[in-house]
């Protein structure tokens, strides 16, 4: 599918940027006429992925989080969220519901479960010591007609 539009931005891994990151992504996606629930679900998935970069990727240090959002001709949104943090040694385990490596912060261990439930496709590529790339994909259906809420 041809790329219709895209944005690319990056920010330091400060928790105050979690809000700004999901606002930027939702502002971009708004132009595709999503339903309220599509927009809210994508926003939630982005918040989970960005929080993972900040809480886990750059656990005891600061670094840069990068986001690329792309809309293709068929109204599929692809969101790539990358960090150059510590990486995930066991991606399968990290994606298990209720697994968390940060229980002291009251993390529920549901970040990936939320992403998988709200997006059509979630892929995780991670190299220990190099970083992690999470790719979220969802087709916006409601823009075809207003009935798909």
């Amino acid at each position, binding site marked *: 599918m041809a790329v219709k539009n895209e944005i690319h931005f990056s920010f330091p891994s400060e928790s105050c940027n979690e809000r700004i990151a999901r606002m930027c992504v939702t502002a971009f996606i708004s132009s595709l006429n999503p339903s309220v629930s599509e927009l809210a679900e994508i926003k939630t998935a982005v918040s989970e992925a960005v929080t993972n970069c900040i809480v886990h990727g750059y656990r005891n240090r600061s670094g840069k989080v990068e986001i690329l959002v792309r809309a293709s001709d068929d109204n599929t949104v692809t969101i790539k969220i990358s960090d150059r943090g510590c990486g995930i040694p066991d991606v399968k385990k990290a994606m298990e519901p209720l697994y968390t490596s940060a229980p002291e912060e009251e993390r529920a261990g549901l970040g990936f*479960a939320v992403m998988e439930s709200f997006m059509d496709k979630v892929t995780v590529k991670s190299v220990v010591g190099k970083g992690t790339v999470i790719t979220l994909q969802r087709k916006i259906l409601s823009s075809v007609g207003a009935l798909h809420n």
Partner: protein
Amino acid sequence: MPVIIDTEETTLIAHIQGEIDHHNAAEIRRDIDLAADKHRPVKLVLDFDDVTFMDSSGIGLVMGRYKLIKPLGGKIHIINTSSQIKKVMKLAGLDRLASIE
């Protein structure tokens, strides 16, 4: 002020304000725990009417308060959730720990 606290006899009502994410959760948690420590409620009501966004940080927040209040024989009631927030809570099975309205 991320939480407005009301008390009625043995009930503590926490009206959570704004967005619940990893950045805000710590402050919300601190405010509720301070009030709970002071009032020792039998019933903790978490009011989501003024919550505009919540990710899984909100799940951690509810689970943490459940762990805090359960040993004291307390119960948690979650009220005024939007359909979006309810979806995240059900995904986490929070409906097994607390009543959700």
